[in-house]
């Protein structure tokens, strides 16, 4: 029974793939390649050594953009959240910048950084910076005063208070924010690579279309993006299972 329940999604996907293949075989045309064609596309990419190269290129940009944003936004956000007045001063500005899609920055990114890695890293950075900043601000503001008071009561100085109370108290919220933001970064990299560079999975998709309508490669690129996105999310989720981080998820 348990095995059947676990196999259910696998079976469901298999049925969809078969239906897809049957539909494409019955109505051959150029609307969509079949799953078999997509597998062929992935094999093509593997043969030319492009799959690995493009995946690494995309992950490289995401790592830099996401990493820089995390390194800057989290300490900044924690500081702002701690000082109520700073939060009141900065909040309106953040609220104006936040709804601007990172894609709207593409022209400026290319103007400032030219076509290349820096421009796409910059776009990913922008896509991650504001959500992470807000996550960090809120994480600090949501720490119950009782933890801070208890920490001070036990004689902690400012550095110890940050390390032994503030940091563990905000970690669960930060992890959720980081996971969601990594998803955003993975969305942004595809768009950035369509315009600003000549490698990566986003580039693969536009290039496959422009260079000869290879829609099998387009869909192959989409499938790989989906799978890697899933892997990234799973990796981040596994962090949430660490026991000393997990308190916030198990407590009501």
């Amino acid at each position, binding site marked *: 029974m348990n095995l059947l329940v676990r196999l259910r999604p696998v079976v469901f996907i298999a049925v969809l793939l078969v239906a897809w293949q049957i539909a494409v075989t019955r109505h051959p045309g150029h609307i969509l390649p079949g799953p078999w064609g997509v597998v062929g596309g992935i094999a093509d990419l593997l043969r030319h050594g492009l799959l690995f190269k493009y995946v690494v290129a995309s992950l490289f940009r995401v790592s830099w953009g996401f990493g820089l944003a995390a390194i800057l936004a989290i300490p900044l956000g924690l500081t702002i959240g701690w000082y109520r007045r700073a939060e009141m001063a900065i909040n309106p500005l953040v609220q104006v910048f936040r709804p601007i899609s990172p894609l709207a920055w593409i022209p400026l990114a290319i103007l400032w950084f030219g076509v290349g890695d820096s421009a796409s890293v910059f776009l990913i950075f922008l896509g991650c910076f504001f959500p992470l900043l807000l996550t960090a601000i809120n994480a600090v503001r949501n720490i*119950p005063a*009782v*933890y801070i*008071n*208890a920490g*001070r*009561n*036990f*004689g902690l100085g400012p550095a110890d208070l940050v390390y*032994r*109370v503030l940091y*563990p*108290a905000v*970690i669960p919220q930060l992890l959720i924010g980081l996971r969601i933001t990594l998803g955003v970064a993975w969305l942004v990299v595809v768009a950035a690579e369509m315009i600003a560079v000549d490698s990566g999975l986003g580039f693969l998709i536009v290039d496959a279309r422009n260079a000869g309508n290879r829609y099998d490669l387009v869909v192959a690129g989409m499938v790989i993006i989906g799978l890697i996105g899933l892997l990234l999310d799973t990796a981040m989720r596994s962090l949430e299972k660490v*026991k*000393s*981080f997990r*308190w*916030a998820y*198990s*407590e009501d």
Partner: protein
Amino acid sequence: MASVTAATPARGIKLRVENLNMVFTRDGKSTPVLQDINLEVPAGEFVCLVGPSGCGKSTLLNIVGGFLSPTIGTVRIDGEIVHGPDPRRIFVFQERGVFPWLTVEGNIEFGLSKLSQPGRKQRIAYYVKLVGLEGFEEAYPSELSGGMKQRLEVARALAVNPDMLYLDEPFGALDSITRLVMRGELLRIWEAERKTIVFVTHDIDEAVQLADRVVVLSARPAAIQRVVNIDIQHPREISSSRYLELRDGIFQQIGLASKV
């Protein structure tokens, strides 16, 4: 009424609250919360502050604990003015105060960073046993019941060997059975260690069961209405005529009938 003070004549004054006034200002409106509080607590005494909900007794305890500054007046401990919280005087918040990211051991260890590793282990083991949490050393607070979390917080407070304990309605969130057990445990610990305890509660029965003296506060702005000496030996017979007399006296003082 004189028998308790007579039994403990030579104790020094631990806590002295002088002319304490507290006014909260919010949106330009000022609300007086505490009015001319004067109180002396001898070392080793168990004092309960009782008063109606929202009267300001928690505010008073927070000022005494150093978490809030009074508008006027001073709090002195051993003659020194209190300017902030201090590990010699630990505040026990309800069970909410334990750190959820630390295990039972980790919580008790929290204030012990100055001790050597073996000293720390020994201290942890002692207080785990004292509050009856053996077998739960590795458990996180989310795996504990409300009463266990409360005992854990008391253990964490006692482990740093403070002179004083401040307890702010510590048993308020517990069910009535656990509450009775916890009162018993607190008295046992107090009789063993003789800390000076300031205990805030709105439960008059609880105050009369625990305290050497009960300080009765009025509704806001809180002023001390009366200080009642509870001259009954522990363990207290809660159906004795003296107990009922003292309890009903406080009920009357607060303006409540002792009948439902």
